[in-house]
């Protein structure tokens, strides 16, 4: 799925309709320059990469995870939480930092090289001095998605103004990656407040909850991530959390960030450490402090130790040394193994599947939310027609239902027998949005064949929908699949 371009707006899809509605709203408010301008930025955003907000509790590892997702150290992390400014990381041809002030002016701070220390200093400005930082860098990881890092929820550093900025950025983002070490009341309240808007309630599809710093669970033992995974599975079943997200994923951001920074020199240092015998190294790894102060073996000086510890964390170190002892002897292999352990891949996949692949539905959601907000904030004679149009779109947004069922299937909330499940995923567009792919037909299939296939599928799922053995949630899911089949049939026959 590519970012939609101006040249060929999809005429029937939800995004196309949402876009048309946005244009109409813009025309309707053309004599109100502020509103129209705001709507225009929304329109322009449709041709930019998807915007994902990375937010969460204080010290939940937001910066670390941004680095791990981008694959480079561009977001500075610190022991103390002092970030008060929203930072936008996006793709650009050359590294550049731009500061936006609350009065609307922009200021280019530096070009050429990005220095984490400068960024950190800028992030600590007060929100009435800096509205947002925009950091451009040519990282390939940012081509498909723009990341917005926000100040932490429940932070002692953030003032009230910062909090309203946080709410604003969340209303602007197409998707939200929420980080917390374990879901607590504050998180649940916060996420509920984000989902209070009507459009958001209709489509709770844009949030992924990451249980970050999973390596610290159970005191960083070997099986910390398995423990975290089991815990995540339990939260997935919690109705309070289910109501706004279907994805709860544990991730060890530090370990992932450290693994991607692993070079030959660090690898050698690790190998040096691995030559020590079991009890000695265990002694060193008992605590972080012991590790930095240890003197054996001599080849590894305290500076290197400090770097390794800061980059990998105690859990990462333990895992790395364990892997080395088991015979992993190549930097690349070690890196891959560590990345695998950190589960960053699972998170990336979820982000990709949920957000990048599904960007049309998410963008449509953002556009409709914007229209809803404008119509709500500035009602005037004649806006009722637009409102009616919005309601019609909301009621017909079958794409969102598809997404919800798909995530339900993936996260295990919905269970279908095996062949049915595969078919449902296919029809709902898990492998791709094109009718041929959805119907599972060979690429060279004739239109006639496709129609027949769609008809057969629609009949089958209609029969399933009448099956009394399904409970309510499953019946709804089956009906959604059935409706998808019928829609496919409709597109294929051109409405005849």
């Amino acid at each position, binding site marked *: 799925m590519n970012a939609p371009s101006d040249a060929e707006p999809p005429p029937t899809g939800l995004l196309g309709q949402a876009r048309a509605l946005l244009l109409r709203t813009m025309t309707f408010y053309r004599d109100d320059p502020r509103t129209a301008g705001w709507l225009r930025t929304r329109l322009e955003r449709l041709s930019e990469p998807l915007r994902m907000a990375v937010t969460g509790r204080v010290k939940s590892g937001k910066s670390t995870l941004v680095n791990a997702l981008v694959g480079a150290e561009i977001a500075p992390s610190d*022991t*103390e939480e002092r970030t008060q400014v929203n930072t936008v990381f996006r793709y650009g041809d050359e590294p550049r930092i731009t500061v936006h002030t609350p009065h609307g002016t922009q200021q280019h701070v530096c070009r050429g090289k990005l220095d984490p220390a400068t960024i950190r200093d800028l992030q600590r400005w007060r929100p009435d001095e800096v509205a947002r930082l925009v950091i451009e860098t040519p990282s390939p990881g940012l081509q498909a998605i723009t990341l917005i890092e926000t100040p932490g929820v429940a932070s002692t550093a953030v003032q009230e103004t910062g909090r309203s900025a946080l709410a604003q950025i969340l209303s602007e983002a197409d998707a939200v990656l929420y980080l917390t070490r374990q879901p*607590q009341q504050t998180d649940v309240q916060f996420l509920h407040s984000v989902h209070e808007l009507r459009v958001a309630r209709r489509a709770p599809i844009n949030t992924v909850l990451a249980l970050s710093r999973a390596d*610290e669970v*159970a005191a960083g033992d070997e099986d910390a991530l398995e423990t975290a995974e089991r815990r995540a599975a339990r939260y997935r079943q919690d109705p309070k959390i289910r109501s706004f997200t279907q994805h709860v994923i544990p991730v060890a951001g530090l370990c992932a960030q450290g693994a991607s920074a692993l070079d030959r020199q660090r690898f050698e240092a690790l190998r040096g450490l691995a030559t020590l015998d079991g009890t000695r190294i265990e002694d060193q790894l*008992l*605590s972080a402090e012991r*590790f*930095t102060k240890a003197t054996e073996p001599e080849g590894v000086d305290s500076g290197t130790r*400090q770097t390794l510890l800061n980059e990998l964390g105690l859990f990462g170190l333990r895992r790395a040394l364990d892997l080395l002892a088991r015979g992993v002897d190549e930097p690349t292999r070690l890196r891959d193994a560590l990345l695998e352990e950190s589960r960053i891949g699972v998170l990336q996949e979820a982000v990709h599947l949920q957000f990048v692949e599904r960007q049309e539905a998410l963008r449509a959601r953002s556009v409709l939310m914007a229209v809803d907000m404008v119509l709500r904030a500035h009602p005037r004679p004649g806006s009722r027609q637009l409102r009616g149009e919005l309601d019609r779109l909301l009621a017909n947004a079958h794409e969102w239902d598809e997404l919800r069922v798909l995530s339900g299937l993936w996260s295990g909330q919905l269970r279908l027998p095996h062949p049915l499940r595969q078919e449902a995923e296919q029809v709902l567009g898990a492998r791709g949005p094109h009718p041929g792919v959805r119907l599972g037909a060979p690429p060279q299939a004739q239109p006639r064949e496709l129609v027949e296939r769609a008809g057969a599928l629609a009949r089958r799922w209609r029969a399933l929908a009448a099956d009394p053995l399904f409970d309510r949630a499953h019946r709804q899911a089956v009906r959604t699949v059935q409706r998808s089949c019928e829609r496919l049939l409709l597109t294929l026959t051109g409405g005849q």
Partner: protein
Amino acid sequence: MHNPTVIETALVELIDRAEAECVEAQRTDLSNRLRQIRSRVLDPAQLVLVVGEPEQGKSELVNSLVNAPVCATGEHVSTTVPTVVRHSSEPSAQLVGQETPQSAVGGDRWPVSIERLHEELDNALRDGYSLSRAEVGLPRALLENGLALMDTPAVGGVVSSLGTVTEEAVAEADALLMVSDATQELTTNELNFLRRVTSMCPNVALVQPKIDFVPDWRRIVEINRKHMANAGVAGKIFPVSSRIRARAMREKSQELNTESGFPPLLDYLRKEMASAHEQLTRRLVAHNVTEAIDRITTSLREELNNQSPRTATETLLELEAAQRRAEDLKRLSGRWQKTLSDAVQELYSDIEYDFRERSWAVLHQANETLDEVDPGTTWEDFEDWLRRNLSRAIAETFEWLDRRRERITEQVCDELLREHVRTLPASDPIPVPDPLPRVPDPKPPKNADYPRKDQFLTGLRGSYGGVLMFGLMTSMAGLPLMNVVSISAGLLLGSKSLNEEKDARLKRRQAEARTSVQRYVEHVVFQVNKEARDAIRHMHQTLHDHCNRITEQAQISISRSIQDTKRSAEQSAVDRDARAREIKKKLEELNALRKKAATLTSNRITAA
């Protein structure tokens, strides 16, 4: 030094006097609190609460302190019932139930084996016992002086009710150990919690476990010290590591033990807490007594200000305002009563219609099915299906009813909102009834089986005519009566009449089944309507009572204020002066008492 018992008596006396003042001022909330404190003063145990947010390692800390796995830790358990660990010569454990009017004082107790404590606890909770806490006794030097550690449910977790349990327990604690792991600084929530609990229990220390995990825990501790100072919370900070402590215990290594950070914490608990028990109690008493007195003083001051003589216009204005309020109230109660009765009437007819519609859908489907299948053979499956569908219809109707109930409650309470604080009545969701067992089962159709003998007879009857007819016809052609043609014709006709008979029986069965289903569904509809009506009536009653109570209270307060105004207008200046003098005297008394309470601590501090 003073004699402890003398001091204790003095403290109890102080509390009693303050309590008497509270009772006189009709502040039962304050006097109850003081009574709680009083029983704490007389209890020799020093209760130290371990509190904090979820998964910070509270239970682990308690386990490390006493060096035994007494509190359940790990991924799949979160503490739901407080566990108290105190001294005893033999390891022992018991579960303590909630105190109810039927139970023994302080709740029923069941001794359990200490190894199986967690299992027993889980079992008891699963069986629906309401437990107030679990108690564990251990022979530890640390606990010998009467120290008791209490592991509490987390505050701020997804399950909010557990946090309340903890906050209630804070009121009677001697000291708190707040647990927040060293991997990050304190959050706003934690600081707010600290600030809130220090007003109830001023002895707080912050324990930061997991220092083994982060290299720069020292900085975090520094930051937290700043945060606590900014929040006005005084308390020591202990960075510890349970992991290193466990290792030290295993290897009996003194050096490791020092590194784990536990010795200072143990010292603090053993020395400062134990020797300072007296001081802690004093602080606890002083704090609570001064606060109670302050509250009473404020309300008395207000009354004193109101004692100043007022003019006739003021009185008149006040009276007018009160009268206006009374009129408003009358209008208001008329309004909510109308809203309520309208809504309930509507609901009665809606719900009846709703279920009838649903049952019709089921009936329709049943009839369609019965047209096609033989009810004789599939009756059991069919009955099952029918029951399931009806139960689902009932469930859906009641779900809808419950939603309507919520909406009506909100509507009616919204009417009240304008004048009074909006409170929703405590009403449970309407349970889905199961009326099916009360309805007699639908009768299976009769003559389901068709015995061979009867089949044979019917066949024979049919074939008889055939044989005779064709036999006669062919006999004209010179063949005998029983020939090939006549016999085969007989067979043909015999099987035809057998089939017809079978068909007719099937039709009859289907018709019978249909009537029986119809009757059954009617029965169910009747029962469900009755249930629904009962539920609605109950809801109506609850809501009506709730609103009535609010209105009545408002009524009472208005009439009281009218009376007050009248009385104070009639009251002579002399009386007013007398009351003012009385209040002033009382204030002086209270002030003296407060000073006495305050000296309790200041004395100590200068002495110490």
